[in-house]
C-alpha cells in the first residue's frame, strides 16, 4: 500500500498493514494518534521521559500484537488511548513512582487542579465535547476527572471527596453514560460500540 493510500486508509486497513509488518502503516498510526497518546501519558505520569516510554510501549504492542485491536469495538484512537491510560496508571501506581506522583499532585493542587475544559480546548471537536461535559452533574464530572486524568481508583476518589465508594462508582458510570449519549447526539461518536 502506497504512503498516499495509507493517509486515507481506515483504522482496520492500517492495522492489517501493520500485521504485515508495514512500518509505513505504523508510522501513519503514530502520525494520527501519537500526539494524543503522548499528551494523555504526559498528563497522567507528569514526566516527559516516562510518557515517552509509555507511548513507545503502546506502539510496540500494536506492532507485535495488532490483532488485539478489534475494530468492531471502537476506533484505533480509543484503543491506543485505553492502552496508554492503562500503562500510565500502572506506572503511577507503582511503588517506585509514588513519591514522584505525590510531588506532582502537590504541584497540580497548587496550580489550578483538574480542568476538563482545558484538556479539550484544542480539539477539533472541542465545542461538542464541552457541550457534552456540561450535561454532567458536578459530582459526576469531578469523579471522572479524578479517575481518568488523576489515575485514581474509585476508592481513592471516594476518600478524596469524602463520599461513599458506591456513590463514586455510580457517578462514574452514570457520568460516562450521560457523556456518551451527549456525544452521540452531537455526532462526535457513533451510536455503536
Amino acid at each position, binding site marked *: 500500500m502506497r504512503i498516499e493510500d495509507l493517509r486515507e486508509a*481506515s483504522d*482496520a486497513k492500517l492495522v492489517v498493514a501493520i500485521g*504485515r509488518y508495514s512500518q509505513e502503516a505504523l508510522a501513519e498510526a503514530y502520525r494520527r494518534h501519537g500526539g494524543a497518546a503522548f499528551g494523555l501519558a504526559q498528563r497522567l505520569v507528569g514526566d516527559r521521559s516516562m510518557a515517552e516510554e509509555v507511548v*513507545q510501549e503502546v506502539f510496540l504492542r500494536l506492532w507485535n500484537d495488532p490483532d488485539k485491536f*478489534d475494530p*468492531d469495538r471502537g476506533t484505533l484512537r480509543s484503543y491506543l488511548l485505553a492502552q496508554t491510560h492503562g500503562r500510565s496508571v500502572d506506572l503511577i501506581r507503582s511503588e517506585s513512582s509514588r513519591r514522584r506522583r505525590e510531588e506532582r499532585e502537590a504541584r497540580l493542587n497548587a496550580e489550578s487542579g483538574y480542568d476538563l475544559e482545558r*484538556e479539550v480546548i484544542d480539539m477539533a471537536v472541542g465545542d461538542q465535547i464541552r457541550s457534552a461535559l456540561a450535561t454532567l452533574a458536578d459530582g459526576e464530572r469531578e469523579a471522572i476527572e479524578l479517575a481518568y486524568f488523576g489515575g*485514581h481508583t474509585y476508592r481513592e476518589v471516594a476518600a478524596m471527596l469524602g463520599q461513599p465508594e458506591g456513590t463514586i462508582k455510580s457517578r462514574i458510570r452514570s457520568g460516562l453514560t450521560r457523556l456518551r449519549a451527549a456525544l452521540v447526539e452531537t455526532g462526535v461518536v457513533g451510536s455503536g460500540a
Partner: protein
Amino acid sequence: MARERTPAELEELLGAFALDAVDAEEAEQIERYLETHPEARDEVAQYRETASMLAFAGADAPSGLWHSIVASLEEEPPRLVLPVADPTGDLPPLRMPGIPVRPDVVGPEVAPEEDRPSAAPVVPIDAMRSRRSVGMRVMTGLAAAALVVVALLGVQVDRQGRQVDELTSALDRSAIESAAALAARTPGVRTAEMTSQIGGRTARILLLPDGSGFVTESNLERLPAGRTYQLWALVGDEDDPTAISAGVLGNSPSTVPFRFSGSAFGFAITDEARPGVVSSSQAPVVVGTF
C-alpha cells in the same frame, strides 16, 4: 481470599473499570465476567471510546520518540554481508555457495561499515502473512471498507473472516500483478533473468530507478510449510560480492514486490528454514545479474 462479587456488583464497576479505576483484584473478576457477557464488554468499549474523547489531543508527538519506536521494532531488516572475514580471525569468512567470492579476502580488506550499502527494508509478504496473521476481527472490519469493490465483483461476502481474507489476498495479488506489468513497461527499468544451475528454475527481477522492484515470472517450486524463499541483492565487486537481504518471498512466490535502494548488479534467491535470516549458508536457488 478475595470476595467473589455478584454480577450486579460487577456491573456497577464497569465505568470505573473502563477508566482503570479499580484495583487489580477487581479488574481480574471483571475481566472474567466480560468473557461471558458480551453486553458488558460492549458497555466497557463504549465507555473507553467516550473517555478517549476527553484526552487532550496534544501537539504532534515528538519525532525523536518515533525514531525510538522504529529502532526497537521486532523485525529488523536482515542483512548479509559476504564475504566478510572475522576481524578476530577466529571464524572463517562467510560464504554464499554458488556466488563467486574471492578467497583471499581478509580482515583489512573488508570495506568499512560506512562504505557498505545500507540494508534494504524487508518487504512483508506471504511468509510474514502466514507467520503473523492479523486476527479475523480486523479482517471483518476491513470488509466494510472493501464493500464497493465486493459489489463490483459480484461476490457475496458475509462476515466470515475466511472469505474476507481470500478476497483481500485476491485483491492484493491483482494489484501486485498490475503494478509489476506497469513496472516492466516503465522507462529505466532494469531486468535480470534469474536461473538455476540445475532444475530449470527461473525468475525475473524488475528494478525501477526509485528502488522499487518485483520478483516476477517465477517458476520456483512450492516449499514445504515453514520454509521460505529469501531475496538477496548482490552489490559491490562482482568477483567479491556483498549480499544484502531484500525481502522474504514466501514459500510459493509468483509476483512479489520488494524495495532495494542500493546499487545492485544482481540478485539471488535462497531457500531458508525460517523467514528473515540475517545470514545464509544456503546455495542460491536462482541467481541473475543485470
